[in-house]
């Protein structure tokens, strides 16, 4: 082989056709990779959910499914609401200023993160890795929680804690507060989750 002359012209064409082939293979990959994306049917399944909240007693939580995720509606007691401002120094983002467009609609950018302070509406999915936190409404010392626990939520997966407004505590794995879904009150006891204005 070594004593043969290299035909540069031929070599150029071999390289060129190799490159064209690689580009072609790249284009062929597009439909395959795209097939990983959610299908049209899955995209369509995201209708708003109407919920009757009249039956929730103070201190109770109702869970409904919206777009496959749990949405919590918590009717907070006056004591729970009163404890919220005191926690501000312990929280990572007490005023819900981070990523406001994704996490907190304008009407919930307040101390209690709600339209009506009594009712908290949040997506019950931890902003860390998507587990659903569990209720730890009772204040006081208990396993996995600090001794001065004021009531809130504890994510069982990695120990993130949230207060009764779904605000995340400092120095926890979860970076952000729980998401407040777009929602609107249709009447005093009915809310629509997934839409901001009355349809």
């Amino acid at each position, binding site marked *: 082989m070594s004593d043969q002359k290299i035909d540069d012209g031929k070599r150029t064409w071999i390289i060129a056709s190799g490159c064209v082939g690689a580009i072609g293979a790249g284009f062929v990959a597009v439909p395959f*990779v795209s097939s*990983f*994306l*959610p*299908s049209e049917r*899955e995209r369509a399944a*995201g209708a708003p959910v109407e919920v009757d909240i009249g039956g929730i007693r103070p201190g109770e939580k109702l*869970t409904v*499914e919206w*777009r*496959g*995720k*749990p949405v919590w509606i918590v009717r907070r007691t006056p004591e729970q609401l009163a404890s919220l401002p005191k926690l501000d120094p312990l929280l990572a983002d007490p005023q819900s200023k981070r990523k406001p467009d994704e996490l907190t609609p304008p009407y919930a950018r307040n101390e209690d993160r709600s339209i009506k302070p009594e009712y908290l509406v949040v997506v*019950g999915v931890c902003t*860390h*890795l*998507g*587990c*659903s*936190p*569990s209720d730890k409404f009772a204040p006081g010392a208990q*396993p*996995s929680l600090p001794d001065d626990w004021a009531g809130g939520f504890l*994510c*069982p*997966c*990695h*120990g993130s804690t949230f207060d009764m407004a779904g605000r995340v505590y*400092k*120095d*926890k*794995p*979860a*970076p952000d507060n729980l998401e407040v879904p777009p929602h609107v009150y249709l009447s005093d006891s009915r809310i629509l989750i997934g839409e901001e204005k009355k349809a």
Partner: protein
Amino acid sequence: MAEFQTAPAGASVGQKLLTWVDNRFPLTKLYNEHLGEYYAPKNLNIWYAFGALALLVLVMQILSGIFLTMHYKPDAAKAFESVEYIMRDVPWGWLVRYMHSTGASAFFIVVYLHMFRGLLYGSYRKPRELVWLFGCGIFLCMMAEGFFGYLLPWGQMSYWGAQVIVNLFSAVPFIGPDLSLLIRGDFVVGDATLNRFFAFHVIAVPLVLLGLVAAHIIALHEVGSNNPDGVEIKAHKDPKTGIALDGIPFQPYYTVHDIFIASVFLFIFSAVLFFAPEGGGYFLEANNFIEANPLKTPLHIAPVWYFTPFYSMLRATTDVMVNILAAILAVGGVLAILRGGFGAFGKIAVAVAAIVAIFLLKTFDAKFWGVVVMGGAVIVLFFLPWLDRSPARSIRYRPAWHRYLYIVFVILFFILGYLGTEPPSTGGNYVSQVGTLFYYGFFLLMPWWSRLGTFKPVPERIIFSAH
């Protein structure tokens, strides 16, 4: 191409058939290269059996897996039910299923021991770097298999485990959310996710895995096995035959060893399979016998034991830990500049790299760095051949304190594994942070510490006495 051979006159039918085949396919040649004339060092000990055991478990997994697919339905509405159907109604289905689920844990036990053997005797050192790299690739494929496979029974742990791991990818800056959408194929873990994980688990990853296993063995048989003394047996060959003096044909000497050890292994495996198939909740978690419920996370979720050391490292990476890492980088950078033996440009490069790294650490969420720390703990293994600069390959000829370091490493790895199965706690988290730092220190500082200490003289040839 080899010459066309003819069987000698009066040859048996078998010999004639073999000659016929050999003229068309290198059967005898392959047999000799990989078994009959593959010379392995005489002094291999029990640690060297785990490679063969891994192959045995791989075959068991493939066989039991094939039979499971005959009854399993990769459909979110039917998956859980079909696994229960296999367990209750399919004749001997419970055995096949438990064989597969227990086999997964057995596979990881055997492979962790196999990898530890490599660490003990420096089996990844030149010229066996590629053997080690293919092996690390196999380990990655096994982790992918374990992860994809665990979703298939569609229990609570399956669902929430997948939810957590897929969400890990959404922590990647910029492309993360789209990436996790691409993996799930839906906005939540659902039918689409289950269906594609099934495809990955039963065909895509196994194909890659088998290819890597072949490459691992071909590379090993090209360079020859290492041994507990860590000396190269090919350095002393019989001048006439060209065969290593300390070598012995794999078949029959090591095949007999391996068959015996495989029998012992199968005793233990069967005992677990029949009497404790769930491994006390470590091989199959109790929560996984409850059907997946997207609205309710189990109170305590933990991955299967073979992921937990790495999972602990993920949990250990909090904001405080990121600050510690930044401080370590700063100190490391300053030390490298003051004491490092490289020129002005090198020092400027180190300073710039350290500042950029610290800036990035503080810019992105601790959540993302948790993913990096967890992934990096596996990726760092790939670099082992170039991190170890010890003059002696085998632990036998390294300073005694190297041995203690290995012991501490193993103990911390176990502790990390244990903590990963436990609910998060403040104290546990501190221990995980120490463990994580030690794990990384062990590997990343290896170029430095592996050269320190007084090494014992490495013998010219292996130490071996026939019994």
